[in-house]
């Protein structure tokens, strides 16, 4: 992690005020580091200009792996490795293999996506998150602006946050 970074931190109490603020602050050309909220605020990712997450693609790929693996395993085991006649049917008949294939697809897609989510979000059980204000898990929305990446001064940024409805403006150094 980089050291000695100075941030201006705006605290918002209302999600709609926050959404408008994000829009107008970004319009001024100010780069927002991140916004921390106690609950998902709809439209915030678009307002911040984030690209849509590719986790659904990951889920699809994991699911596809599950489908192929389950089909291959069943056909190989019962069709080639140890063929048995069960109910006078073909050794490797597809319909009875579908339930297990489906379950395995869902299993790999869910676990794969959940683990990918934990990894890409850099979440670890022993890691403490960098928190600008820990009320962001309670009832406040916290907007962090990095001073180094913006041209405006500390005072100007604080004023901009206040003008856009921040109930409190603080400073935070890491």
């Amino acid at each position, binding site marked *: 992690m980089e050291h000695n970074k100075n941030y201006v931190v705006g605290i918002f109490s209302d999600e*709609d005020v926050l959404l408008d603020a994000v829009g107008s602050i970004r319009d001024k050309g100010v780069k927002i580091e*991140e*916004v*921390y*909220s*106690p*609950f*998902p*605020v*709809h*439209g*915030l*990712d678009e307002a*911040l200009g*984030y690209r849509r*997450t590719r*986790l*659904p693609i990951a*889920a699809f790929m994991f699911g596809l792996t599950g489908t192929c693996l389950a089909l291959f*395993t*069943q056909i190989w*085991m*019962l069709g080639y*490795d*140890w063929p*048995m006649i*069960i*109910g006078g*049917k073909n050794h490797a008949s597809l319909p*009875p*293999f579908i*339930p*297990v294939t*489906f*379950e*395995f697809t*869902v*299993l790999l*897609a*869910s*676990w794969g*996506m*959940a683990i990918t*989510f*934990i990894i*890409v*979000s850099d*979440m*670890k059980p*022993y*890691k*403490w*998150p*960098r*928190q600008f204000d*820990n*009320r962001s*898990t*309670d*009832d406040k929305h916290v907007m962090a602006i990095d001073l180094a990446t913006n041209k405006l001064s500390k005072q100007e940024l604080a004023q901009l946050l206040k003008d856009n409805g921040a109930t409190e403006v603080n400073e935070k150094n890491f």
Partner: protein
Amino acid sequence: MQASSSVREYLVTGGKTVGDVSEDICRQVEGKPTTLWIVSFAISAVVLAFGFYCGCYLLWNGVGVWGLNKTVGWAWDITNFVWWVGIGHAGTLISAILLLFRQRWRMSINRAAEAMTIFAVICAASFPLMHMGRLWLGFYWCLPLPNTWGSLWVNFNSPLLWDVFAISTYFSVSLVFWYIGLIPDFAVIRDRAVRMGNKTRAWIYNSLSFGWDGGAKTWMRYESVALILAGLSTPLVLSVHTIVSMDFATSVIPGWHTTIFPPYFVSGAIFSGFAMVLTLLLVTRKTFKLEDYITIYHIELMNIVIIVTGSIVGIAYITEFFIAWYGQVPAEQYAFLNRMGGPYWWAYWCMMTCNVVSPQLFWFKKIRTSLSATFVLSIIVNIGMWFERFVIIVTSLHRDYLPSSWSMFHPTIFDIGEYLFTFGFFFCAFLLFAKFFPVINMAEVKSIIKATSEKKH
């Protein structure tokens, strides 16, 4: 932007703010356990201990300690198995299907319902495991593992094997779904602990929350994961009880050999699951003073689900009889006449009264908005659903093709003990959950506070 409706009732009453949600839900996690909690836990633990003894006795002596005989080879074990799996279904219905339908009322009940699902599935799984008798060989019988017999693989054509995959997938996917939902709420408890100066608690809940930061990017990914998991769980939950029903439906036993089983079992599962959710939530709501979050409106909506699924189950019972008559297969006709008027007539009529007649009382608004009536009826429904499985399983088996082998099933103390074991486990687990985990999904409830909370006047 969120819009509030004047037509729909408030989902959160008492003029709660976002901050109040954290306060109200975290209170019981942070406080000391109440006497009621300790007493309930002690009782559950005693029941669990007795059940554990019965389980050990069974493993030592074999499945013969159960009351099964040559004719009735499946009885309480599989009845309890299907009953518990069915109960689990409501949790997934609430958390996944209602999420896809954008039903906001699920938000304050989904956490407890999902926990119920997970514990119920564990209870369910214990019965087939115990029925194997030699549990330690179970892995070879259930999973395609290389072994010294060939390798002689498991039979992928068998619905019993599909069941292994269905139940284990269902359990683990429900667990992921539930845990992902818990992550932001653990972070709430962590940050409150930091503010209170309780370092140990902060450390424990930080580990549980995987260092959750609540950034907009993380929330975006989180929401994407929740939506996809809901999309995956929806067909999954329908497949699970479908496959459970195929354990019976793919056989050629009169009374089991019917194509109506999959939808009939699924609706029965949701029916009994909602009844169990109501039983648990009515108690939880009272004990933890959550009346403002789990309102009468929530309870009414759940009761409406019970009327719908209960009526589907009722129609399924009648359809079975119609098809038995219409199909003109004597064995099938006999099986159904025997159900209704044979030696197990009392179980059949108990099932009919509890499952078909009693939920119809919820057509009266007074009854479906009454807490005591709902509590009593929810228990009656679950008794009825247990008898449904008992009737399907035991009455179809006990009079088979040879009258000389006809017999009855009498449960032994070990049948009862195994059932008690699951009750002990279920309530111990649920009580631990209710004490140490947030019982209501705080993040989701907070997101709807602005739109659906009753304003203070």
